[in-house]
C-alpha cells in the first residue's frame, strides 16, 4: 500500500510508505528516522520484506539471513548492488564497478588487481596523515555539546584517505600512474 502524497517534498518519487513489509523504500523520510524500529518490527512479522519500487527489491533483516545470502554466491549475485531507478543487472563478469559488482570467480581476479596498492605495508606510511586528519576533524568540533559524528567526522575520512592516490608534498604516487590518476591531497 502506498499513500501517495506528491506534495510532500521529502517523499521519494513513489510516495510515502505505509507498509514496510510489502512496499519498503530506503529513500522514504521515515526510513532514515526509524530504521531500527522498522527492522525490529519486520524481524517479528516479515524478516524478508519486499517492494515493487525501483524495479523490485528484497530486504532481509536478520543477521542469519544476511550472512547466508552474502556467502551464497551460487544463488545470489553481486551484479546488481544498488537499489535505484537507474540500476540494471549488468552482464557478467565485469559489470560496472568490479570487484563490488562481480561474482566469483572473476571477483577474485578483480580484487587481486586492486589489492597491491592498498596492502597493509603499502599504506602504513599513511598512518600519521590519517591520524592528523582525524585529530583535525575532532578539533574542528570545538566545544559544542552536541555533534553529528557522521557528518562532522566519519564521512570525511574515506574521501580524504582513499581518494587521494598521491602525496602532494612529495608527489610520490602511492599507486602506479598506470592504475591510478595522480591527485592532489584534499
Amino acid at each position, binding site marked *: 500500500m502506498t499513500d501517495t502524497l506528491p506534495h510532500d517534498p521529502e517523499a521519494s518519487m513513489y510516495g510515502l510508505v505505509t507498509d514496510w513489509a510489502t512496499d519498503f523504500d530506503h529513500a522514504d523520510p521515515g526510513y532514515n528516522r526509524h530504521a531500527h524500529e522498522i527492522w525490529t518490527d519486520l524481524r517479528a512479522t516479515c524478516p524478508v520484506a519486499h517492494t515493487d519500487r525501483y524495479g523490485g527489491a528484497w530486504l532481509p533483516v536478520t543477521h542469519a539471513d544476511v550472512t547466508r545470502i552474502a556467502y551464497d554466491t551460487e544463488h545470489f549475485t553481486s551484479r546488481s548492488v544498488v537499489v535505484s531507478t537507474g540500476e540494471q543487472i549488468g552482464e557478467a563478469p565485469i559489470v560496472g564497478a568490479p570487484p563490488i559488482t562481480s561474482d566469483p570467480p572473476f571477483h577474485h581476479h578483480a580484487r587481486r588487481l586492486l589489492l*597491491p596498492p592498498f596492502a597493509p*605495508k*603499502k599504506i602504513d606510511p599513511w598512518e600519521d596523515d590519517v591520524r592528523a586528519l582525524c585529530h583535525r576533524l575532532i578539533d574542528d568540533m570545538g566545544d559544542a555539546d552536541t555533534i553529528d559524528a557522521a557528518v562532522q567526522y566519519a564521512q570525511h575520512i574515506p574521501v580524504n584517505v582513499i581518494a587521494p592516490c598521491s602525496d602532494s608534498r612529495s608527489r610520490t604516487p602511492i599507486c602506479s600512474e598506470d592504475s591510478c590518476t595522480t591527485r592532489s591531497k584534499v
Partner: protein
Amino acid sequence: MRLEIDSDKCQGHNRCYALAPELFDVDDYGSAMVLNDGIVPAELEELEEKARLAIANCPEFAISVAAD
C-alpha cells in the same frame, strides 16, 4: 595449536595481520601467510586468544586450526 590459511579462500582482507601481526604476515599482493609454520605456543594465552580472534574475523573463513 597450529594455524593454516587456505590461500584459495584468502581474498586479502588482512584482518588477521591487523589483529595478530605476531602470527600472520602479508605479502606485497595482500595475501596472508602464517608465521612460524602456524604454530601458536600454548604457553602464550594471549596469542591463542589473538589466533581465535583472527579465525573469527576472517570474512572468507580462510583460517583454521590444523587437525594434527
